[in-house]
């Protein structure tokens, strides 16, 4: 173990791989000292594990309950630790399965919005001129709408459902990444190494994708992580309004909407999914803050 550690922390790496892994390891050591960030990391890790192993972890069926015997049981009932809803379904099991939906939304939005933002931003920054003006004006227009309102309008147009919610959120999510990537590109596009690559005959596409995009990655990743909490809240809000995942899917926002009708007598039905949303989005916020501290060179003292 200590051998590995020494190899990673070596001042004279003998290969590119060693240097890269060493850098990653140093970042991790730096990150590990931040208690709150580690807490956030832990929450996100638990979310991922819950989503992956849901069928083994959930004690009951998330979609079908027993209407005769298990309706609206309070929390801490034996076997139903978070209680049951009006259809006799175990809330804990629904939350565990719901983590899959939450994770899928976050992951898909990140996978769709990040490349779009990177592509638009780096292209605008690299070429400059009218390309820059057109692309950035378009970005600003999308940015001019409040996110939730634009997502609402798109879901209204496309029809309710989790897939359309993901598309709508992605459409509203990419502009900040484009701006960020453009700003980063502007600072490096006149560097010597770009000029050298150009002299070697590299195409614009190659320069952007192989040389500029990797340098924009760390700041974009930080921004995406920080945005994930907002994405979760937007998705939950759409679900709450009945425009996201449709019943009987155990989406957390929709579960709150379901529990709203009997809030006074059976408080736990709406409370538990809200706590789940809160915990996960707090986790992403803490993780994002921590990542920003270790990955953003401008913030280091």
């Amino acid at each position, binding site marked *: 173990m200590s051998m590995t550690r020494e190899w990673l922390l070596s001042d004279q790496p003998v290969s590119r791989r060693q240097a890269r892994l060493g850098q990653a390891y140093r970042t991790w050591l730096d990150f590990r000292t931040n208690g709150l960030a580690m807490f956030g990391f832990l929450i996100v890790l638990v979310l991922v594990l819950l989503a992956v192993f849901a069928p083994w972890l959930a004690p009951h069926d998330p979609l079908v309950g027993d209407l005769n015997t298990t309706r609206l049981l309070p929390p801490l009932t034996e076997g139903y630790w978070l209680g049951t809803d009006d259809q006799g379904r175990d809330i804990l099991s629904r939350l565990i399965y719901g983590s899959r939906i939450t994770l899928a939304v976050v992951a898909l939005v990140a996978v769709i919005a990040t490349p779009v933002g990177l592509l638009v931003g780096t292209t605008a920054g690299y070429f400059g001129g009218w390309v820059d003006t057109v692309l950035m*004006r*378009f970005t*600003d*227009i*999308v940015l*001019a*709408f*409040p*996110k*939730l*309102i*634009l997502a*609402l*309008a*798109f*879901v*209204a*147009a*496309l*029809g309710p459902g989790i897939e359309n919610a993901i598309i709508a959120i992605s459409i509203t999510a990419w502009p900040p990444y484009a701006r960020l990537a453009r700003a980063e590109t502007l600072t490096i596009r006149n560097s010597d190494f770009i000029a050298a690559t150009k002299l070697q005959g590299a195409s614009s596409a190659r320069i952007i994708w192989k040389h500029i995009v990797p340098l924009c990655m760390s700041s974009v990743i930080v921004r995406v992580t920080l945005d994930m*909490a907002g994405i979760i*809240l937007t998705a*939950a*809000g759409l679900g*709450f*309004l*009945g*425009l996201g995942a449709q019943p009987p899917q155990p989406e957390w*926002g929709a579960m*709150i909407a379901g529990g*709203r009708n009997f*809030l*006074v007598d059976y*408080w736990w039905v*709406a*409370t538990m*999914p*809200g706590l789940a*949303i*809160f915990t996960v*989005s*707090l986790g992403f*916020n*803490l993780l994002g803050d921590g990542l920003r501290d270790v990955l953003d060179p401008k913030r280091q003292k």
Partner: protein
Amino acid sequence: MTTRTIRGRRGALWLRKLVSTLGTVAVTFLGLLVVTFLIGRVVPVDPVLSVVGDRATQAQYDAAYHALGLDKPLIEQFWIWLQKVFQGDFGTSNLTTRPISQDIARVFPATLELATVSIVIGTAFGIPMGVWAAVRQGKLIDQIVRVVGLVGYSAPVFWLGLMGLLLFYFKLDLISGPGRVDISYEYDFTPKTGLFLLDTAMQGAWPAFRNVFSHIILPASLLGYLSLAYISRMTRSFMLNELAQEYITTARVKGVPEWRIIWVQALRNAAVPLVTVVALSYANLLEGSVLTETVFAWPGLGQYLTNSLQNADMNAVLGGTLVIGAIFVGLNMFSDLLYTLLDARTRNQK
């Protein structure tokens, strides 16, 4: 150089900034209109069917199709629609059967009142918290302010609203429930401005004022909390920036009392970017209001929008989206201009 030429140059600079901002805003508005129009065109709901019903003959269908102008090219349809929008005509709502512009004018004061009370709460608590956290950087109070802010960023507002209703209305009975005013007080005053707090106060209807207040306090506190999270974080970072400056050291050396350094000298300089932050928070409250108004049955723009959405009333949705987008852009522009006007450093540039 005389004062007059300096002032003249400052005016010229500001004017140039105004013109360029207006240019940007004009393009952005046009973009808003195009995006909204295109969203309206991809709707799977057939607008003809909602006019003639599904038992119409082909001839009736064609007539309505022609009357709605759907047989014209897209660009011409956009032009017609644009002219109508500029005359304040967003079409008629299928749900209320009234012109959408009238509907929006009717519900808007409710949202305005809620957002204004919220931003007052958010600013009144957020700025002192941020200042305090900056002064005690790294201490316990700094951590507390940070956690309070993080919770505000992370909690779903509609859920907080439900929990607040459950606790303060149903269990403790400290406040009034959903809605803007109880029905028994509704006829104690005439809604002239539509801002009920203002209306009741001006007409001296104090019991009604108290009732209105007990209705608005919870949703406004919640929205205020959301903006507080952002305002306190930004205040803290601006103040840290100011407190590290040399003029603060100078003031300390000269023996200026510490409270005066913090609350007068540093805060006055930090206030310039803070104005922008507060204006942006105000714009963001419009967004937060959509979910909050749904939870509190608050008859404002947000609830109008969600109601229209759930009833597939597309004209109303687009009208509402456009109005909110326009206000959002307007506030952004306003904060941008205000910044130029207030920041002493931008005045010295040529």
